[in-house]
């Protein structure tokens, strides 16, 4: 904090060592999963742990893609996450516009509901939703998961978009009205283009959240053809003789899209995260 020059050893103890420790703690499991994923089974099952494989191999990745249900699960996760995101954003845009521009009865209480619904226990929704889906014969379909994920994502997207839309100055609306723009025109010509970064960040976050979701997916899917990536991964543990190499490869492949999306939009996500309540 101060700009005074401190001796090097103080800096080492108060800055460098803690920074390195924290970073090592943060990346250790990921690095270890990667090292495991490029070992073959004989190098994983050794009496004394080997920190780097003698013969690095991509065999685990090939196995995961060729011999397991990973590709099916990947496809399911992609479809479900994309549909959830699309539905939530499309449904939210007009409603969030109304919330940000008009005062109407119940708008305050509804906004409180949107933010607080992020904190409801998921089990409270999972159980009755299962009974309802069962009654409608929707269990074991991708649609049931899209619906389920919309329950917690839609209020979140609403809340975020209201925030972004409210941040756009009303002066712009008035200028546009003078120029003959209708109220709906203001939404599409002024508000949407200006809040696009926020919308993209929110959409990506929604996608990642659906991609990660486990509890609904475990409950609602029981056949291999409908499983998502998290469900497939969770089934590795508890198996007799876990194939750690395959598991690590599958885990890293599952994380890859999330990490790429995140790197692509790191700035937006952090801005959005600190702006409002985001599930962590």
């Amino acid at each position: 904090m101060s700009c005074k020059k401190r001796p090097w050893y103080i800096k080492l103890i108060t800055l460098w060592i803690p920074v390195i420790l924290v970073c090592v703690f943060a990346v250790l499991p990921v690095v270890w999963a990667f090292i495991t994923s490029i070992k073959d089974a004989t190098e994983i099952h050794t009496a004394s742990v080997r920190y780097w494989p003698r013969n690095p191999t991509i065999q685990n990745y090939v196995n995961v893609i060729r011999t397991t249900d990973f590709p099916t699960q990947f496809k399911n996760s992609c479809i479900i996450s994309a549909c959830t995101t699309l539905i939530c954003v499309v449904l939210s845009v007009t409603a969030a516009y109304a919330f940000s521009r008009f005062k109407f009865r119940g708008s305050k209480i509804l906004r409180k509901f949107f933010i607080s619904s992020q904190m409801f226990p998921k089990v409270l929704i999972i159980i009755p939703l299962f009974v309802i889906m069962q009654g409608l014969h929707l269990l074991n379909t991708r649609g049931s998961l899209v619906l389920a994920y919309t329950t917690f994502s839609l209020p979140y997207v609403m809340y975020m978009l209201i925030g972004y839309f409210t941040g756009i100055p009303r002066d712009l609306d008035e200028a546009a009205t003078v120029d003959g723009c209708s109220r709906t025109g203001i939404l599409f010509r002024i508000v949407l283009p200006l809040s696009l970064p926020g919308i993209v960040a929110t959409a990506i976050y929604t996608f990642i959240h659906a991609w990660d979701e486990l509890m609904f997916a475990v409950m609602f899917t029981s056949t291999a053809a409908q499983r998502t990536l998290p469900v497939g991964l969770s089934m590795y543990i508890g198996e007799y003789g876990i194939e750690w190499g395959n598991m690590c490869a599958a885990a890293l492949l599952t994380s890859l899209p999330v990490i790429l999306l995140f790197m692509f939009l790191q700035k937006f996500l952090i801005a959005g995260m600190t702006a409002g309540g985001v599930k962590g």
Partner: protein
Amino acid sequence: MKNKSSLSTKAYPYILVAPTLLVIGVILLYPMFRGFVLSFHNHVLTRPLEQGFIGFDNYIAMFHDPIFWLSLKKTFWWVVASVFFQLLLGLGTALLLNEKFRGRALARGLVLIPWVMPSVVSGLMWAWIFDGTFGLANDILMKLGIISENIPWLGNAKTAFPVVIMTNIWKGFPFFAISILAGLQSIPKDLYEAAEIDGAGVWRRFLTVTMPHLRPVIITTTVLRLIWTANTTDLIFTMTKGGPGYTTHVLALYTYLKAWSELDFGYSSTMAIFLMLLLLVFIGIYMKLINKDKETDII
């Protein structure tokens, strides 16, 4: 905007909002209502003939269920230990990352990794490190001479819960770090300069300038994390499924397992309602806090 009070002007916002509210009503409010109703029913999927209204029987059974009380205790420790250490580690990390040093951007990126990784992946990676036979943790602790034989960390009644909590601390501390870092960056620099001129040392500046400014961020984030941690089930589900025995049965997971493995949807709903009522207190506190923080910048 001109304020014509014709019918279409008044109806306009409602038309915009209607589809979304309809969807939320159907997929969120109605299921919550159904859950409430279910909590007063016997609804075990495998015994359809016995299903029906039973009044408060589920609630009475819940208060006589020793595992329910155990799971409440587990929930308390799960939440308190996780959030306390997340806050501590997050605060420390934020203070470090607020300093200027070479490679700071990289360090900030690395620290975010736990937050970005999917929960299931996080659970699996740590389960692998703490594996009883080939795990890295045993290997390192043996080489350091701390333990003399392999410990099956997740299969041992004493060690499973701490390991799961540690995983949760790992997963959650970046959220604190980022929130607090944002708070740190909003503190005006001249306050530090003024304090320094007044002769305040590093520790004194931390207590009189940094902490008072961070307090709202810390309190809000902590309450939010308390609620989310109480709701978190995916990490424990992935790593131990509540075992060994009932050693990692937090209430949210017990509720889930009642429905998922025992198919007892009535009793499960009862516990879900209880959890919700418990959390409503904290949700209320949170809403109060953010209203105070944000009164100025939203509408």
